């Protein structure tokens, strides 16, 4: 009898591992955008060059008014934005965390993020 209990436990653990892998491994294609963005009444300007580093991925160098695609695995990520001055020195770095909940919201607007606007992750406004 004990053996059935133990094997049921083991099975549950494996299923759990499966779900965790599914969740952590799921890849999402994110649009990282550095354009001017108006949200509600505030507008955020995207005229500075930035380096965007998502979790452990390669830094994405972006000029003003630029959009890049980045594939990330998993829902929870850290974001570090390095704002560059004219001679491309790191003037300021801003970090934060985010989790991708809504499958449709894949559009990350950096200026909105720098402006601490909660709606910085949104659906792709263009389509």
């Amino acid at each position, binding site marked *: 009898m*004990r*053996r059935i209990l*133990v*094997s049921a436990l*083991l099975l549950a653990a494996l299923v759990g591992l499966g779900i965790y892998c599914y969740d952590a491994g799921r890849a999402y294609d994110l649009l990282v955008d550095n354009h001017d963005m108006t949200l509600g009444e505030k507008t955020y300007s995207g005229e500075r060059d930035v380096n965007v580093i998502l979790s452990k991925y390669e830094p994405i160098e972006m000029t003003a008014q630029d959009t890049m695609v980045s594939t990330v695995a998993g829902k929870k990520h850290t974001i570090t934005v390095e704002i560059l001055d004219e001679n491309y020195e790191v003037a300021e770095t801003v970090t934060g965390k985010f989790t991708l909940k809504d499958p449709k919201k894949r559009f990350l607007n950096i200026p909105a993020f720098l402006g601490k606007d909660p709606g910085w992750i949104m659906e792709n406004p263009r389509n």
Partner: protein
Amino acid sequence: MEGVGKSYYGNRVLKNVNFTLGKGEILGLVGENGAGKSTLMNILFGMTVIRDTGGYEGKVYIDGKEANFSTPFDALDEGIGMVHQEFSLIPGFTVAENVVLNREPMKYNPLVEAFGERLSTIDRPEISRRGKEAVEKLNVVMDPETLISELPVGHKQFTEIAREIDKKKTRLLVLDEPTAVLTESEADILLKAMKRLADMGISIIFISHRLHEIIEACDKIVVLRDGEIVEETTPEKTDVMDIASHMVGRSVADAFQRDEAPRDEGETILSVRHLWVDMPGELVRDVSLEIRKGEIFGIGGLAGQGKLGIANGVMGMFPAGGKVFFEGEPVPLNHPRESLGTGMAAVFEDRRGVGLLLEEPISWNIIFTALQMQDKFLKPLMGGLFRIRDEKAIAEEARSYIKSLEIRCVDENQPVQELSGGNQQKICLAKAFATHPKLLFVAEPTRGIDVGAKRVVLETLKEYNRRRGTTVVMISSELEELRSVCDRIAIINEGKVAGIRPASAPSTEFGILMLGKVDTKVEVESR
């Protein structure tokens, strides 16, 4: 055991067997082949073959309780161990591993929780300890770590016994002819080991053909003949001669009647000098025989002593050596085609294995050897360019034998596998007769067939011998049958000719020859 009886398909094999066996006692069970020894042991051991063929009468008591085993595993649980003649050992395993086979000591490990007992690791030191301990009980010098495949034959036997002893609950051990394969010295060690086991409270049933061993080792002796216990004595009260006579001494009345005086025929048709034959289980070491033309020559002896090997050797079925002359001409051995070509034919003991084409029709079975060896039943095609089977002639030949040998069948095209044992034996005979041989070997012609068929087979052999002058060499373990049909009978023991006697000689004389007393006056004029 009380009032135990058993019959297979109508013929009675065991009748009212009663005997008791005390704790730590050695009982010697003796009897001719076919006397019912193995059936008795099968009943004791609960083999499924007994249940499949209608169970048994009478009762078996273990420690006073009635025991009724449906499978061998019940018997094993009850503490009964059995050591068969052919070894059941794993060649690639060591002695110790074999001793604890399927009862390996196991150490717990976490995986057992999830996947069950069989994943627990084996405790190797414990295995070799138990192996050594079991071997020591037998007081035998044997390293438990050697591989079985490298052990001499004797030691394999000890390993098997050690395995039975290692089972904690073993109370009764059945040894079925353990000494058959052992040398003298090894047999002595075994007997001493048996005595030591008995002293430890294990009772033993010891089955053997070597009567001097029975006398030396057993506390009680039971003699079985034709399924009945005819004698129950103790070693002090009897001797080899007395047991032999009980084993063999059937009252002359119900033996087959001998209807005419023995006749002495002409010159030698087949001369065999120093023949050895490598046939598994029937080893022939050094046999020399002279068989006269027109005679019915009998070859008897116990199972495994080599009598069946002779026919197989002469006919080239098994690797053989030595000199064989047929009608004066030397016959090269190891080539069946040569032996058949000289006019010899053979009906072998292994009917289903060698003697028959089970899926082919009766007609094909009968004519094949004749067609193959003497190109009979072939008709030319396209002006003799090819020769194909003459179906009409084949059917006629088959029908003639079906009539003359009274083979009960639908027609000559019926596949042989649908026929009874008796009819199949007749077909083997027909196959040999079809080649009109000058000399016919017949091995165990009446084994496993009903009494009616036995009579027809023996009559036909006698008739062919008289009418066609075919010399017949009959090999059988049924001594009475030989004495009723043959002129002279040779007894083979341990691959050699123990002695040759006219059929009229008293059966006790044959009994002694069978039991290993090599006769000095061997009637063979070596030329």
